């Protein structure tokens, strides 16, 4: 399956929050939707989930208009919430049924996910009696009820401790391996870098870049060289680079410059004792994010 997001525009009152965004998501490849808070990630998901309708643009699934009711979808909204005064299993069964499962299948599914997240002892307890972390697990579990083909998760790692985050990552990996279409938003680069094959980067309602993460890293690193040197020598090194006519920038304490071999071979030996490492530049997702969205927007 290929989900295409085409030229989506959305305004609230006079303020346009999505300025014609486009990217595509492919099943079997985890897609990370990156952007800081307020960039437009949740609005994009809500338009996709038809919580509210976009002003223009289309969502296409395999070339056909995307209809929410025709597919099994797992959705975890940014605003978490379920019935506090209802039993855990009862409400998971209810949500399973709402997603089209028979009562028996929904009950089995609810039991499976309760067990998967190690919450058997809470199955008949009201949600409000569970800790925040365990409530979060139940909310995540509801997104996977009725074996969805399309999984849309808005900030799924928010509020998860490392152990639960690992459990959740395993679930996502399994669904990606099974060829499901998975997209999740996050502003936590490490998770996206670890989990995703593709990314789309949104800033202030505009897609800055999208596509295969590895290719993006290669493109961003092409003909660039990094130098990680001691701070005491950084000033002198920068002077030499400038004198040689090489443009450079600084990212997370490292100098990134053009891969001008002759010039670098002449300059770098002078700093043999000061350079901690150097080589072909391969940007991290965080480097790309900062470069594209601007350091002031980084969280």
């Amino acid at each position, binding site marked *: 399956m290929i989900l295409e997001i085409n030229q989506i525009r959305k305004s609230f009152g006079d303020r346009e929050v999505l300025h014609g965004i486009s990217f595509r998501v492919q099943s079997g490849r985890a897609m990370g939707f990156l952007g800081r808070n307020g960039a437009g990630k949740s609005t994009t998901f*809500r338009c996709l*989930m038809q*919580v*509210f309708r976009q002003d223009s643009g289309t969502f296409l699934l395999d070339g056909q208009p995307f209809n929410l009711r025709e597919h099994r979808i797992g959705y975890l909204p940014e605003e978490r*919430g379920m019935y*506090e005064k209802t039993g855990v299993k009862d409400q998971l069964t209810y949500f399973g049924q709402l*997603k089209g499962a028979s009562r028996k299948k929904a009950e089995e599914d609810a039991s499976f996910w309760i067990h998967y997240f190690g919450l058997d002892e809470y199955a008949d307890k009201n949600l409000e009696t569970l800790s925040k972390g365990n409530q979060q697990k139940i909310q995540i579990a509801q997104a996977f009820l009725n074996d969805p083909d399309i999984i849309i998760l808005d900030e799924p790692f928010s509020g998860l401790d490392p152990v639960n985050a690992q459990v959740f990552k395993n679930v996502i990996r399994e669904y990606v391996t099974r060829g499901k279409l998975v997209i999740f938003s996050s502003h936590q680069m490490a998770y996206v870098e670890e989990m995703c094959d593709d990314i789309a980067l949104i800033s202030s309602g505009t897609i800055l870049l999208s596509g295969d993460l590895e290719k993006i890293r290669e493109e961003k690193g092409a003909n660039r060289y990094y130098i990680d040197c001691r701070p005491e020598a950084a000033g002198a090194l920068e002077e030499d680079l400038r004198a040689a006519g090489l443009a450079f920038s600084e990212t997370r304490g490292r100098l990134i410059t053009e891969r001008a071999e002759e010039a670098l071979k002449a300059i770098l030996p002078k700093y043999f004792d000061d350079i901690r490492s150097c080589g072909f530049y391969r940007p991290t997702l965080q480097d790309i994010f900062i470069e594209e969205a601007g350091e002031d927007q980084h969280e």
Partner: protein
Amino acid sequence: MNNLGVVFRFEFMNQTRKKAFRVTAVIIAAVIVFLVLAPVLFRSAFEGGDDGLDGGVVFEDQAYADLLPFEENHIYGTAEELEDAVKSGKEDIGYVILDPTHIRTIYSNYGVSDEAKSAAVVGAMKEIYIRQALAQQGVSDEAYQKIQNQEIHNETVIYGKDTTAQYASAMVFVILVYMVILVYGQVVAAAIAREKDSKTMELLITTTRADSLILGKVFAVIAVVLIALAVYLTAAAVPYLLVKDRYPEAVKEALNSSLNPSMIGIYILFFFIGLVMYLFILAALGSVVSRVEEVSSSLSPVVTMMVVSYALSFVLMTGVDNAVLDGLSWIPFFSVLMMPIRYAYGGIALSGVFVSAAVCVAFTVFLAHVSIRIYRWGTLNYGNKPSLTGVLRQVFGKSGKGAAV
């Protein structure tokens, strides 16, 4: 609306599992059983008490002691003894009978019912005075009794309805509709507000159409009302069938005259139309607010409308025939309570009642549509509570039309 049944079942189970629902049902059923058994348990009260007079008494002239039916142990020797008895609370009321035309009444506290008590004594004294006065003029006691007991033959012709028998059933109808709508309307509104408050709504509307969600909730509450009414009806019917033969004649006659099958049919029809109509209104109001605590203030305009409707229905029960009331009775918000009362009191023909019912049903369908749109619009509308016109403008404006129902 393929999930209507799922939503209905979930909401129904949620409501009926509540301890408050069960406890309330048991308490009300117990009260009903008691009320049904009351005519048998307190038979004497329903058959009328003895002719005795209540309170303490002192006779300045002992000649009246035999003429006034006070109980022996309430007759005091002196006015001081009587005053002490009243002051100490032994007697609520005391009478010092001076002569046939002079009585002094002493109260511990003066309440509404005390006037009736003293009126009985005053009446009895007046009767004694008349008999004594007539005897002095040569009219025997037997002649006086004969005059007093002369029956006046009054041939009654009623061209319309005898509405006196309708009062009790009309009152039960008005109170029942009023209470059920207020109690269960609050339940629907709170259930929706709670889903918004807990942010569950976004999950719901991405899996289910808004019409299934709201209709499922409203129908579930109607089913809960039916269950409650069935329990109450059973609580009334079972003891009634067991003891009805032991009911005092007066109660039997009152029941027979007030239980009119066609009238009960009209009441049931308008009861359900009113319930559904108001549940949709209250459901819409529940989706406008952001937090459960805001529900009661949000409902206040509708509650006020119900109170006005309730009060106007009682005015109609006094038999008032007024053009303004007639006009109001055609407005659906009011007609669910007022139209059956107008019919019961002969103010409108049966055909008019059915026209009114049809108008109410059409209006309810319209309200259901509006309610679903408001619910859908209200899904992600958090923050300040907007005005009604603001809500309607947005619901039926550009942004509202964008939302999938």
